[in-house]
């Protein structure tokens, strides 16, 4: 039996199905974005009704503020180091997984576990590990006779940010691992097996085949890592509080401090807009690169 195809018939009641989602997205995302843009042009303490229009002054102050520049530099350092190390370690663990004699599933589950735990829990555990007197890191160093390496990991301005980064890598390495692992299992195994038959070793297989074949996975992890670094708050705030003396301040802790602790509403709105612009720009660049590769 044939039915006439009604190609142009629209289901106008479809909009009813979208109402709940659009309501939440509209109020909390789009109204929020509008609110930030609007208030970034005012001098406003974030609470009162009194606002003074000051044009682009907040943005001018922002880009000249050495504390903000420090926060941006720290965020970039954080981004580059954690994204790269998480990807490198995660890729290694994913690639060697099926060569293990035992514990294939066990290690995968273990490495992924911190990913779903509360960052508060991870942060408190690591704060204790980093403790100068009783922490496991310094205790271990003392035990093996490396006393000269004992440091105040979260209290030394040169080390605090790195202590947080190490925690970040502990938490999110497993995410990169699982994403790489899933991509690798979708490979055509015969291609790899036949390359091995032709005498390709571990390094050759890795650099010539596996690494290039994972191109779109690298780029996915890169963009997720960039967005993730921009919103990094919990670990920094709980482990170092952005200190000592703002040495480990990142953009989100800077935003929190400006808004919640210093009542700089208009200024904080300008910071928010900058964060969002960076995020959207990165997403746009990544989607362009992805498109080029897919062709």
């Amino acid at each position, binding site marked *: 039996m044939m039915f006439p195809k009604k190609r142009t018939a629209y289901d106008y009641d479809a909009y009813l*199905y*979208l109402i*709940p989602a659009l309501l939440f997205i509209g*109020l909390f995302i789009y109204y929020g974005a509008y609110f930030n843009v609007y208030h970034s042009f005012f001098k406003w303490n974030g609470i009162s009704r009194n606002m003074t229009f000051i044009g682009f002054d907040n943005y001018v102050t922002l880009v000249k503020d050495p504390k903000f520049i420090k926060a941006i530099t720290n965020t970039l350092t954080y981004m580059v180091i954690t994204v790269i190390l998480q990807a490198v370690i995660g890729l290694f663990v994913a690639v060697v997984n099926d*060569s293990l004699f035992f514990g294939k599933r066990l290690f995968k589950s273990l490495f992924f576990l911190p990913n779903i735990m509360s960052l*508060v829990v991870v942060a408190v555990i690591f704060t204790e590990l980093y403790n100068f007197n009783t922490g496991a890191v310094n205790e271990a160093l003392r035990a093996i006779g490396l006393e000269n390496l004992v440091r105040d990991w979260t209290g030394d301005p040169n080390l605090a940010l790195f202590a947080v980064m190490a925690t970040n890598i502990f938490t999110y390495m497993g995410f990169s691992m699982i994403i790489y692992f899933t991509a690798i299992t979708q490979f055509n195994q015969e291609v790899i097996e036949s390359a091995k038959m032709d005498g390709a070793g571990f390094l050759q297989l890795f650099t010539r085949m596996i690494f290039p074949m994972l191109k779109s996975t690298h780029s996915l992890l890169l963009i997720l890592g960039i967005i993730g670094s921009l*919103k990094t708050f919990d670990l920094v705030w709980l482990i170092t509080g952005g200190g000592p003396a703002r040495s480990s301040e990142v953009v989100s802790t800077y935003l929190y401090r400006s808004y919640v602790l210093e009542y700089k509403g208009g200024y904080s709105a300008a910071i928010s807009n900058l964060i969002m612009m960076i995020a959207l720009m990165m997403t746009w660049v990544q989607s362009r690169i992805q498109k080029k590769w897919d062709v």
Partner: protein
Amino acid sequence: MIFDRKDIIGRTIVQVIIVVMGIGWLYPLVRMLLKSLEGGFVNNYSAVFTDPGVYRYFWNSIVVASMDIVLTLTCVTLAAYAFARLRFPFRTPLFLLIIIGMMIPGAGFIIPWFMTIKKLGLIDNPLSLVGPHVAGGIPFGLMLIRTFFEGIPKEINEAAIIDGASKHVIFRRIYLPLGMPAIATVTIYTFLGSWNDYLLPLIFLQNEAAMTVTLLPQKFVVFAGTNYGKISAALMAISIPIFLVYLFGQRFLEKGLTAGSVK
């Protein structure tokens, strides 16, 4: 397998590296467990739970997580059905408009969210977290469930239309039941995001009676000084639901990651 099966030396080397790393990843968790058991098997736990304020934290988190799950699933399944199976003007632009939220870091919204919460009269009310959580969770959930709904054979849909079923009946009787695996995945991710959130409770909830579990450790840091036993017991208590979810829902968790990675 990247190593030759018979390359015993190479495989032994990587096995050793992975075991050493495994110890490194296990140690912090085991230390938390051991610290929580210091000074008697349940002393720290009973110290945490005999504190009359503590059950509020858990109750608040349970209420918020439940509302997050119900509202996120409502929004996401309805919208996913429309985007997967209905034809209407501006379908693609509307989809992108919703999805793009995934690429925006939530920290950037703390000011408007705080002001909105204030206008709604929800300051110091755990329910203030629900709106931002749902809005933040919609993009990922929508993408996941739409992809899943698109995989359900269209023929089932068409047969139901011939039988005279309305869109709503098709949605309820066909798409919801068949979509259960994807719905389970979204439920788990919504729960994790809700339970683990720290930034928004920190800003919205100042009154102890309104606080959620991630604010619990700070209570013991203040009152217990460097007593890590009690803090660790609190950390374990917060983490137990997460461990349970991991134990029973790992299959769904990994499915969610895979779906997210095949954009």
